[in-house]
């Protein structure tokens, strides 16, 4: 925590803070605004992080966008006519990947764990649904919670011993997990998974007696789930749980020192993300009606990983954009089928060189001071090390290098 960065902000007049809160996140609606007003009056407590600053216009545009999107099947049918089902299928695939990528985002984007085995939990969800449906005759909507829990449970068991692993080690272990799951599925484990042929003839989901069959039905089904996922994870992000995860991502050691049980939060993030991938697996199984191990390979995990990173890790908008770009955009280049991945690979490299933070990175959360505090902070004497404008003087006003108190004595021979 550097003093320099923090310093200029508290010096802002209190009114500015008030204005900012008026313009605050209109997406969250009037309820949030009321809350903020209440907070302003209550005064003494630090407020929840602001979302990205946005105008009412932004909220209106978002609402308009959602409204237009809701009529996409009709719009498509006037635009492309008979190939509407095909394009709806593309949009549905994008939706499915959005759900998966959002769930990975909880693990990779928020908690900062390099998890490249997400396809494993997707597979567990899909196979749970398929087995329960085909062998035991459960309806899809009944298998959905079970598949979600199953993926979460397996994630809990698998992640328990590995959650403490750092960066690349976790990456390679999760790759190992996805390979083990694929091999187990291919080898027809427990005689349930149908080997490399997979499972065929999974039922369609039905909601209150209404069977979801056509691409149009699935469009509304999948994108409703996408919407719910966004709301759920948005809420999670701003809960105590989400703030803890952000802290862990920014600085694990500091978080630990502040008493955050990092392993517990990491494990929770992992389990929540994996469970949600299991839910996506249910939708996938009932949409495709056929599943086989080839769907759940390492490269699938890589694809999800890149969606999250390309879009901007930690940002739901980024993830949404990422899945449209990675899954949707290539459909426009069907003619270059064999060269698409070549371009994709090159694009990843170029992207990481020029915009490593992703297309729509999540904005740094900034915490506003309660009214009154800004003035009090401004009256505090500035730390001596700070020169004018809060910048360090050129002579490097760094504090004198203190000798570590427990420094070993100078070499005194053996």
């Amino acid at each position, binding site marked *: 925590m550097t003093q320099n960065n923090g310093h200029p902000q508290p010096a802002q007049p209190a009114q500015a803070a008030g204005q900012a809160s008026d313009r605050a996140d209109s997406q969250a609606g009037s309820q949030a605004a009321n809350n903020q007003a209440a907070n302003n009056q209550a005064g003494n407590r630090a407020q929840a992080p602001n979302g990205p600053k946005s105008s009412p216009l932004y909220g209106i545009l978002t609402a308009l966008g959602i409204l237009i999107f809701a009529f996409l099947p009709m719009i498509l049918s006037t635009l492309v006519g008979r190939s509407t089902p095909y394009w709806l299928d593309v949009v549905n695939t994008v939706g499915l990947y959005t759900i998966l990528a959002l769930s990975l985002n909880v693990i990779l984007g928020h908690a900062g764990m*390099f998890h490249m085995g997400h396809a494993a939990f997707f597979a567990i969800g899909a196979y749970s649904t398929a087995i329960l449906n085909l062998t035991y005759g459960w309806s899809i909507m009944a298998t959905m919670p079970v598949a979600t829990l199953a993926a979460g449970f397996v994630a809990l068991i698998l992640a328990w*011993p*590995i959650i403490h*692993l750092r*960066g*690349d*080690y976790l*990456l*390679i*272990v999760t*790759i*190992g*997990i996805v*390979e*083990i799951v694929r*091999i*187990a599925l*291919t*080898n027809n484990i427990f005689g349930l998974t149908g080997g490399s042929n997979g499972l065929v003839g999974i039922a369609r989901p039905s909601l209150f007696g209404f069977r979801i069959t056509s691409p149009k039905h699935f469009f509304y089904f999948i994108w409703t789930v996408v919407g719910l996922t966004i709301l759920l994870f948005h809420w999670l992000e701003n809960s105590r749980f989400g703030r803890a995860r952000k802290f862990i991502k920014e600085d694990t*050691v500091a978080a630990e020192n502040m008493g955050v049980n990092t392993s517990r939060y990491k494990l929770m993030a992992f389990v929540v993300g994996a469970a949600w991938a299991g839910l996506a697996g249910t939708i996938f199984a009932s949409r495709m009606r056929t599943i086989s191990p080839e769907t759940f390979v*390492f490269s699938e995990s*890589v694809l999800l*990983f*890149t969606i999250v*990173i*390309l879009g901007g*890790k930690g940002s739901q908008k980024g993830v949404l954009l990422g899945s449209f770009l990675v899954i949707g955009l290539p459909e426009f280049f069907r003619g270059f089928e*064999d*060269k698409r*991945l*070549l371009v*994709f*690979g*090159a*694009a*990843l*490299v170029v*992207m*990481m*060189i020029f915009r*490593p*933070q992703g297309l729509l990175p999540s904005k740094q959360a900034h915490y506003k001071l309660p009214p009154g505090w800004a003035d009090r902070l401004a009256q505090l004497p500035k730390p001596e090390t700070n020169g004018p404008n809060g910048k360090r003087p050129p002579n490097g006003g760094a504090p004198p290098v203190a000798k570590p108190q427990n420094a070993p004595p100078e070499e005194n021979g053996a």
Partner: protein
Amino acid sequence: MYDLNFFLQQLSNGLTRGSIYALIALGYTMVYGVMKLINFAHGELFTLGAYFGYTILVTLGLAGSLGPPMAIGFSMIMVLGLVALAGHLLERVAYRPLRHSDRLAAVVSALGASIFLQNAIMLKWGAQYRAFGADLLPNVVFHIRNFNLPLVRLLVFVAAIVVMAILHAFIHRTRLGLAIRASAIDQGAAKLMGIDVRKVIALVFIIGPALGGLAGLLVGLYYGQINYHMGQMYGLKAFTAAIIGGIGNITGAMVGGLLLGLLEAMGEGYVSVAWKDALTFVVLIMILVFRPTGLLPERVAEKL
């Protein structure tokens, strides 16, 4: 079936396969040691080596015109050089601009490079399997009592071991090798000692890919056929080998590779062929859980 003979068969098979894993693992461990980066494209450089060898030996037909021993020697040298060049280009394009950026950005760039190279290989040489001719090497089999040792198995093993011995001497006996080891332990301190770490990274990206490419050629000779996506599985396994040996540790990678090859051959022989790959990854997870720094870790004080 499970007699001494079978055991020796699996042992020799495992050592040969392990020596190939070791060659690939060296590239991973050297790059990781110096840059703290998993070079996901390393598996593809390995594949590239196999295809360069295929082009030289089969497409250009050098095996016929030079005779097998000369042709194979020549192709090895060519593959070493060409893949080293490819590795150097890769480092310049995909990794050098990212040296000071986020770890994750480098990982994704490596993944992108891997996807790019794999598809470039597929577009250049086709998606189907390519066969090294059966007549490339004389089909000699040594018989020691009941134990059969094909010449190609011996050749692959010896070639891998000789190259690794040379590398080992280079790393431990020369000043450049010392610079590589020093940079792997602490880049900052190495810089202060006057080591040009940029040059070390460039060097590592020449030696590693060269060895990986050679391994690709050896796989082609040993198994007789190659495909464009074989680098993925070999890469993952070799990385596992590097971790078994303690990543960053060059001797460890050699030992880890041989161990993994033996483990696989024994697992295949005594447990199940279908599950042998799963066995590899279970071992990987076990090692990382119980001994995260590998079996032969570098003795380095770990900062938080």
